């Protein structure tokens, strides 16, 4: 058993990775918007802890800066903005009907297995103790994409998109101890701008269409009118 040979902090990182994957599954199943935002914030918090532990395990203290950035953006700012938006847009009580949640969950499980196979060559090469978690990070990215595809409410699609970014950050941390600082800052800036733009967009959609149900955005098609 590989895991028994690791030190305790490394085992905790693996456990956190498994919990991050669980949070991705929970995101897929959430029907109410405020619990969706809370679980997203929880996912960010778990990634923050995992990054901090990695920083101490590997001695790469620049990871602490990235971790702090993630904490600010993904745990405090973006969920906070989303909550405020949800209240201002008056959609707090809306409940989304997810068609066939069990099928989506099973598909998500299939995506996890797919990520495992895709990530096998990477696992062979990596020398880090957390190389097994690369598959988990790819799975989080793909499950985020599944969420964007399967949801109708715009806010849920945005949470799925941000969850993809979570997975990407986690992938960078566990495969290469984080990207160069310049790039991390650039990516964080992009995510911040994207979050702000999403907020602005919600108001535009709401003003024009009267609801945030993206199924109503269906005027542009290839079928002739």
């Amino acid at each position: 058993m590989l895991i028994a040979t690791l030190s305790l902090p490394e085992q905790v990182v693996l456990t956190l990775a498994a919990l991050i994957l669980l949070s991705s599954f929970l995101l897929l199943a959430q029907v109410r918007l405020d619990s969706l935002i809370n679980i997203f914030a929880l996912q960010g918090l778990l990634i923050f802890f995992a990054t901090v532990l990695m920083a101490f395990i590997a001695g790469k203290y620049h990871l602490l800066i990235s971790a702090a950035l993630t904490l600010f953006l993904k745990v405090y700012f973006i969920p906070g903005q989303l909550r405020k938006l949800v209240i201002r847009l008056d959609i707090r009580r809306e409940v989304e009907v997810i068609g066939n949640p069990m099928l989506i969950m099973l598909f998500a499980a299939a995506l996890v297995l797919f990520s495992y196979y895709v990530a096998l060559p990477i696992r062979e090469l990596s020398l880090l103790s957390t190389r097994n978690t690369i598959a988990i990070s790819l799975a989080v990215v793909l499950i985020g994409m599944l969420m964007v595809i399967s949801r109708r409410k715009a806010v849920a699609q945005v949470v799925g998109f941000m969850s993809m970014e979570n997975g990407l950050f986690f992938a960078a941390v566990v495969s290469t101890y984080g990207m160069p600082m310049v790039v991390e800052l650039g990516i964080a800036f992009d995510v911040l701008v994207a979050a702000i733009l999403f907020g602005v967009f919600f108001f535009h959609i709401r003003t024009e269409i009267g609801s945030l149900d993206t199924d109503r955005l269906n005027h542009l098609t290839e079928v002739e009118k």
Partner: protein
Amino acid sequence: MNFVAATLVLPLAGVIILAFIGHRQSAKTVNLIISAATFVTALLLAIEVFRQGPILSVNKLFYIDGFNVYLILLNAFVGMTTAIFSGPYMEHEVAIGRVDDPRMRLYYSMYQGFLFTMLMALSTNNLGILWVSVEGATLATVLLVSLYRTHESIEAGWKYFIICGVGISQALFGTILVYFAAVKIIPGSEEGLLWTVLQQHAVRMDGGVMALAFVFLLVGYGTKVGLVPLHNWLPDAHSEGPTPMSAILSGLLLNIALYAVVRFKMLVDPALGDHLAGNLMMGFGMLSFSVAGLLLHRQYDVKRMFSYSSIEHMGLMTFAFGIGGPMATFGALLHMIVHSLTKSAIFITVGHATHLAGTQKMSEIRGLIRTQPFVGWGLLIGTCAIAGFPPFGVFTSEFLLFTATIKSYPWLAPPLVLGLSVAFAGLFRNLQPMVFGEPPAGQKPVVANMWPVFIHLALVLWLGISIPTVLAQWLNQATVMLVGKGVL
């Protein structure tokens, strides 16, 4: 090096200045001045690269070589000519009430912001910053696509945001994988994303990881190139936004995404040793130009039709890069330039035509050549150019592609010709009545500055007949970097 900084700082300053004064009458002049200044610095940069060879900045963050110098110049040039067009066009839009003051400030400042991110993407040496810039370009234009705030434009903007955002995230994963492969063999982790460093060590990078990375990168950046089946955002985004936006989105942003794919291909090919990257690109490219050519026929909106034409041409370029070989690569690189010039010229003309006719529906636009001959002729010649008539540059590059296909993959030549003919037929079938039909009563000419269009088309004609030596040398250098031997 100073010129690189100047080329980047000018648009950045433009973002800030125009955010404050964008609603004033003087905004269009300021926009034009900044774009012209950017073009001048880009020209000076090009001259310096011509004299000295490739420039690597001191902090290794910027790298200008034969592949991106002419793209930077092209970017700045088209930015300038579109700014010439955009001034009176947006004034007209404000006059008819489609856009208000705050949105004009957004428009002008994001116009410069868009140019800034594109120039940054082209000039950077750091592959992570490349990603950040391409994502930044998407973010800068999202609100511009939905500028008119109609139901359709908001839908187009949302689709653009979500599809491109999700796609680009895949590209980030690919970039992380490339960094992972690089860190294995390069000691300093800060240098692991620098293209110049990676190119030297490309042969030693692990093939399996690089193949996986390329798949993610192709899917990711390919979404922004508009490859089928990831193209769904493109016709909507290019047709619902203001026409100057369509011109630079079609003309420039697609090129930059393809540039990113090709830069990575230059790293992946030595690492893999086999033809996987090329085969993938050929497959996507062929699918794109076939499907786009067919879908062209079904369009009822003139800007949508030309957007599908953009998808078709990007598919041709991807296909050509995929074939490999010096002739196809040279052709593809040339095609990047001429397509950009022609497509932006067409969109500018279409902008005038839609003002003339008051609508974007092709069934209601008639008799352009009778009402305003310059617009009619511009559209006719532009469409001839994009469809691949000799002696325009598009014919030259398509001919090079065709020759290379016959040489390496003769069985792919019939689908290639079929795709080109189908698109040709679609374009002219729709164009004929628009240009030559009977104009409806009361159609009056509009104020239209057709100089940008004719300059672009003249350049495309020039490039078709005789490519200037300096450009040919740069194209050749890029070809050598890609496939190992050049055409000249």
